[in-house]
């Protein structure tokens, strides 16, 4: 059966999906400069305003339910992808007490987020994934396959990651963070911005008038290095090809690539090469210039952005771009109005994990 994306919502540094799309089309970054994570080190971070991450998580899911034709999620499978899970709270406790005595290990891992949602919404069942920056992209991959084989009728895919000292400091020591809002694909790009976000998409085997179709999913592994991508882009090319094959689409049927585009020296170089190799002049941009890199939530939030791009018929311009590094790819400085048939969204992670998702108008 076909998979249809029928309802979605996000919470991110730019706000909800309406505010986010406005920021994207107005080329307004929601990344702010922060000096409180690492002493004397200004960092560009994508921060949200909230009191309790779990409450925000439930709010986003509630909005998706409200916008859908479902009464409740009792006949819906939840698949959640996150890279830090409940770590933000574990860190707070540890930094406050300077020991782990008050740490509740049952509130540390990934499942903590999905357990909270299952409690609130009584999902049919739940599954949690954690593959770093491809977490929610892989959640979408599994969701599509489960609907393909008619195992479930309704699946809610959630991507969620809260800002943690571990990730900010960890990326800092990898020399990949920028002290400013990131500039994907730019010649002078100076690294990525860690960010937090929550995104949820309801995927069903029934079509609606507003539906967008989840047409194809593909994944691969570089098997090259624990963090750096294969400089020949073989893994990225393989995941995009696999997604296109799964969608039964030709290269020329893709109108836009929502790139992983973290603005690190390594990623953008390799991803540009992969896009240059596979496509002929397709529009490419990275919305991480607006949201920052939302890690485990990236796959989901960028899938939502891809849906909006199709519905609005408007290709997002590249925020922050001054001089394009690889001039063989087509990165627009201004929005382009056109019939957007299909979009491919990339997510690449530590461990050389690559996942690509194809979303398009209903066939």
């Amino acid at each position: 059966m076909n998979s249809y994306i029928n309802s979605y919502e996000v919470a991110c540094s730019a706000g909800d999906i309406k505010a986010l799309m406005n920021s994207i089309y107005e080329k307004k970054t929601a990344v702010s400069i922060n000096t409180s994570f690492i002493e004397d080190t200004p960092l560009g971070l994508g921060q949200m305003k909230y009191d309790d991450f779990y409450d925000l998580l439930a709010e986003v899911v509630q909005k998706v339910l409200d916008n859908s034709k479902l009464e409740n999620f009792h006949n819906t499978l939840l698949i959640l992808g996150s890279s830090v899970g409940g770590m933000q709270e574990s860190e707070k406790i540890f930094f406050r007490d300077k020991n782990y005595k008050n740490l509740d290990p049952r509130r540390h891992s990934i499942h903590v987020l999905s357990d909270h949602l299952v409690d609130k919404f009584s999902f049919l069942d739940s599954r949690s994934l954690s593959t770093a920056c491809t977490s929610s992209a892989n959640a979408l991959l599994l969701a599509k396959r489960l609907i393909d084989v008619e195992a479930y009728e309704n699946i809610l895919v959630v991507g969620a990651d809260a800002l943690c000292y571990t990730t900010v400091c960890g990326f800092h020591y990898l020399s990949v963070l920028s002290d400013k809002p990131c500039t994907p694909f730019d010649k002078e790009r100076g690294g990525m911005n860690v960010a937090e976000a929550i995104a949820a998409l309801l995927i069903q085997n029934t079509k609606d008038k507003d539906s967008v179709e989840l047409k194809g999913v593909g994944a691969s592994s570089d098997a090259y290095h624990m963090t750096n991508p294969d400089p020949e882009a073989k893994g990225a090319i393989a995941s995009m090809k696999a997604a296109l094959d799964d969608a039964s689409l030709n290269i020329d049927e893709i109108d836009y690539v929502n790139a992983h585009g973290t603005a690190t020296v390594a990623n953008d170089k390799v991803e540009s090469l992969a896009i240059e190799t596979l496509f002929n002049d397709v529009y490419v941009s990275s919305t991480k210039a607006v949201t920052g890199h939302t890690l485990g939530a990236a796959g989901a939030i960028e899938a939502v952005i891809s849906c909006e791009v199709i519905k609005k018929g408007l290709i997002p311009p590249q925020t922050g771009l001054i001089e394009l590094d690889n001039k063989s790819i087509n990165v627009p400085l201004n929005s382009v109005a056109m019939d957007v048939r299909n979009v491919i969204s990339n997510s690449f992670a530590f461990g050389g994990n690559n996942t690509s998702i194809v979303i398009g108008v209903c066939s």
Partner: protein
Amino acid sequence: MRRVVVTGIGLNSPLGNSYEELYESLKAEKSGVIHLAEFEEIDDLGTKIGGVVGDLDFKKLIPRKFRRSMGRVAQLSAISTANAIVDASLEQDMLSSKRCGIAYGSTMGADETLFQWVSEVSEQNSYRGQNSMAFLKLMSHTVAANIAQMFEIKGRNIPTCSACTSSAMAIGAGYESVKYGMSDIMICGGSEGQHHLAAGVFDIMGACTTSHNHEPEVASRPFDESRDGLVVSEGSGAIVLEELEHALARGVKIYGEVIGYATSCDGSHITTPSKDGMQQVMQTSLDDAGIEPSDIDYINAHATATQKGDIAESHATYNLFGAKTPISSTKGHMGHLLGGCGVVESVICLIALNKSFLPKTMNFKTLDKKCANINVLANNEIKDSKIVMNNNFAFGGINTSLIFKKYKG
């Protein structure tokens, strides 16, 4: 093309015994120059001050079997090296690989041992009373030899004893060794131990400061119109240079990248520096890095606060960089570390890159009219830097210029 990155740092200086301590001291504008009681013992020594490394328990930090062939200069180096090795997470098998080498220098071997040896042999007219280890301590390549033994180094060993350019030259030699494929790892550095022998050498040339013995903290005044000479200090440092892919495969942190190096001679006067020679080495280093003068965001000057040296350097710098490029000499804070200055000042350059922090020139208020109009920093500056330069110049008209770039993955 192989790229060379810095993956470990160790240092012992009058401003601290680690990268972070040095940074904190520079931020707090601390001075590392103090009054030295032992200099009072020599009446006609004009300078009575110097920079010293804080108390270190050599007995605890260095096993006796290694320590017995080391004078102070080698001991300081050994501690810096041990710290750099831990910082770079280098294990013994990697240290002892033929692909791992060292480059170290100092002006002299252990001054205290040399002084004692010569005094006693002369008094007693006999060598019998001398310790067999003495030569190992006072020989010019004592640092390189001792480091190699203590850390079981089997790769290249390049001693770079060239006075004030010793440790900069060591870094340059290490950079070339890794860049051109002879080594994957080069541990590079240099050192000097405090002793009146070093102060005496400069003192009789009239190069030392003598008017501020009662106020040591304001004695060293690079580029300032009221400067009256240099402060002789001790200190040591070691940095681990590594081939980039090698470092990435090991998953170690990277402090920065070495992208350019040049060394040259003036070929003119044996002590008086030549601005043309200085300018030439800076240009050659820029050529090696493939960049323009305008790409340099900060220069750490050699500027020791001597009359002639500072003037020549200012003109050489101005001719290439003009009046905008921020420049400072950190010898105002801690004096001249001699063999150790190149490496410690290179670490200050890495601090500038990573902490977006440009240190001021301590005790600098008014630029000497004879100096060219370069932008000497009188205050600390918080400024993003991508590429920085470290220059050092030595007796013999020897010049070095190193260029470091911020590393982004």
